[in-house]
């Protein structure tokens, strides 16, 4: 109960950010929190497969890149309608997740981690070699996605609330997913794969489906990211990005969904603060990550008082 209240309060807080930012004449915070929410979506999609499915994907940032490049490339060719770009971004991510997942999920453990890492690096190098679309340097986004007058993304507030709305939608959908029959299979396979097979589940197809869903959700986050930064670069897909997103999930609390959102908020705010003190902020972040892993494994959500029932 306390947890629910905190979540609601958190989102109300997020909703108030633009108003508070305007009042303080600091529009920068709208930009910052919008960016945080976009990464929260990416982290959320990772928690689905990581926290609930036990699939340690170290290449999740690849889908950020795919979504972003889908939008960027379409825009470069004159297709600026978000109604076309965003579904295509999700579709492209879905397809690539299907291919990567079909190959990677044949392995497990250490192999799986390395393979997902390797595939995302492959996409990163592919991005670098695309000279027409900026290659190494990346390219600017011609214009933010248009929605035929329905909403104007060049207005900071409107864009902010679109992102917030999508984040809440993702959270609700994910919550439903993990508690539905589908989610149960994934979680059972993570808990004891041999047992899951012995009672009659064929986990592969469900895990692959989860992998694809997570990929396409992250793809939409990528489309939003392109609109946010108005610039796309292969760096979106760099493996250190994947590491960052993993960090967000762990920091917030693996397997809790809202934890990923909290983790994104805390990590990105921390990065923001640290980088204003020193350009070498990573040297502070590194040990923090190590300490979290060693001593606060259950993340921020784990620090909350335990709930009565051992569920959800």
């Amino acid at each position, binding site marked *: 109960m306390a947890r629910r209240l905190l979540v609601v309060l958190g989102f109300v807080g997020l909703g108030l950010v633009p108003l508070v930012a305007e009042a303080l004449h600091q529009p920068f915070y709208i930009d910052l929190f919008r960016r945080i929410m976009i990464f929260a979506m990416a982290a959320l999609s990772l928690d689905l497969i*990581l926290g609930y499915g036990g699939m*340690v994907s*170290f290449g999740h940032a690849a889908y950020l890149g795919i979504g972003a490049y889908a939008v960027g490339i379409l825009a470069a060719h004159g297709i600026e309608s978000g109604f076309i770009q965003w579904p295509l971004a999700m579709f492209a991510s879905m397809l690539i997740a299907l291919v990567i997942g079909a*190959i990677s999920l*044949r*392995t497990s*453990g*250490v*192999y799986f*981690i*390395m*393979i997902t*890492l*390797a*595939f995302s*690096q*492959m996409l990163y*190098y*592919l991005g*670098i*070699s*695309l*000279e*027409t679309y900026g290659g190494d340097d990346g390219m600017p986004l011609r214009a933010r996605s248009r929605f035929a007058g329905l909403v104007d993304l060049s207005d900071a507030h409107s864009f902010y609330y679109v992102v917030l709305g999508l984040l809440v939608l993702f959270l609700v959908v994910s919550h439903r997913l993990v508690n539905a029959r589908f989610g149960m299979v994934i979680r059972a396979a993570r808990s004891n794969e041999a047992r899951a097979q012995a009672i009659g589940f064929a986990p592969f197809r469900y895990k692959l489906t989860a992998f694809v869903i997570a990929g396409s959700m992250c793809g939409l986050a990528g489309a939003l990211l392109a609109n946010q930064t108005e610039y796309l670069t292969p760096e979106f897909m760099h*493996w*250190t990005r994947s*590491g960052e997103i*993993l*960090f967000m999930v*762990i920091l917030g609390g693996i397997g809790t969904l809202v934890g990923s959102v909290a983790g994104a908020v805390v990590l990105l705010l921390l990065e923001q603060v640290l980088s204003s003190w020193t350009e*070498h902020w*990573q*040297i502070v*972040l*590194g*040990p*923090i*990550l*190590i300490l979290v*892993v*060693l001593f606060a*494994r259950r993340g921020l959500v784990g620090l909350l008082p335990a709930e009565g029932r051992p569920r959800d």
Partner: protein
Amino acid sequence: MNAVLVLEQFLNGVQFGVTLFLLAAGLTLVFGIMNLVNLAHGALYMVGAYVATSVFRWSESFLVAMVAALAASLVVGMIVEIVTLRTLYERDHLDQVLATFGLILVFNELVSIVWGRAALYANVPTFLAGHVSILPGVPYPTYRAFVIVIGLAVAILLHLLVGRTRLGMLIRAGASNRTMVAALGVNIRLLYTCVFGIGAGLAGLAGLMAGPIYAVQPGMGEQILIQVFVVIVVGGIGSIRGALVGALLVGMVDTLGRAFLRPMLSLMLSPSAADSAGPALASMLIYVLMAAVLFLRPQGLFPARG
């Protein structure tokens, strides 16, 4: 495109392959025996490269630089093992991945604090400069030949170590059944430390030799590490033989692909199509190789465990 060029690229492939092997051998042993995913392995390579480059500049002696670099990577490796990795042996892979990722951030930042973010360029030591004639009329950079020789020598030494010594026997046993080795009363702590030390030394060696060939910059460890992962997946975890075969395979595919894919494509496609598709496909080749091996033999080519 002529025979000399092909031969030269072939040798470059071998040279890249032995560099990968030096890194892969240590990493695969650590994976296989201690079940530890160590993303920070590349950091030891980086330490070797930076220390060798700096010491060489200051001392003008390649030998001094070599010794310094090896010592540095061993020391750093030991410190990392004692301070961080010991607690990770019992943890699951995700924890290891994240913690060693944190280590990478620290190392890369430390290096950029001390040496700056710009790439350092190491000079080839004078006695290794110039070319040797592999065959009459076929010159090949002496330094690269040197790397190949050292790499293959290490491969042979490792083969002897693993095949003929007591330590090697324990390593092989540990790679195929870790719990059994512990149950037999072997001093596991010491074994782990030795294995880790060997890996650190090999990584440092790869790094110190890499300076003159590849750019010395923060993040260089991870760039090559991911290719090392491909090597290990292809070769099979825990197997030195797999590491060698995998490394040479990956080294060749990558080097030859980068050199010849574009010209080959331009025979079939228009020059501009070949120009854009060539490098893109070349950089993907080793991952295609990895996917193919995984599809046919998910355990790799020479897995240590049956």
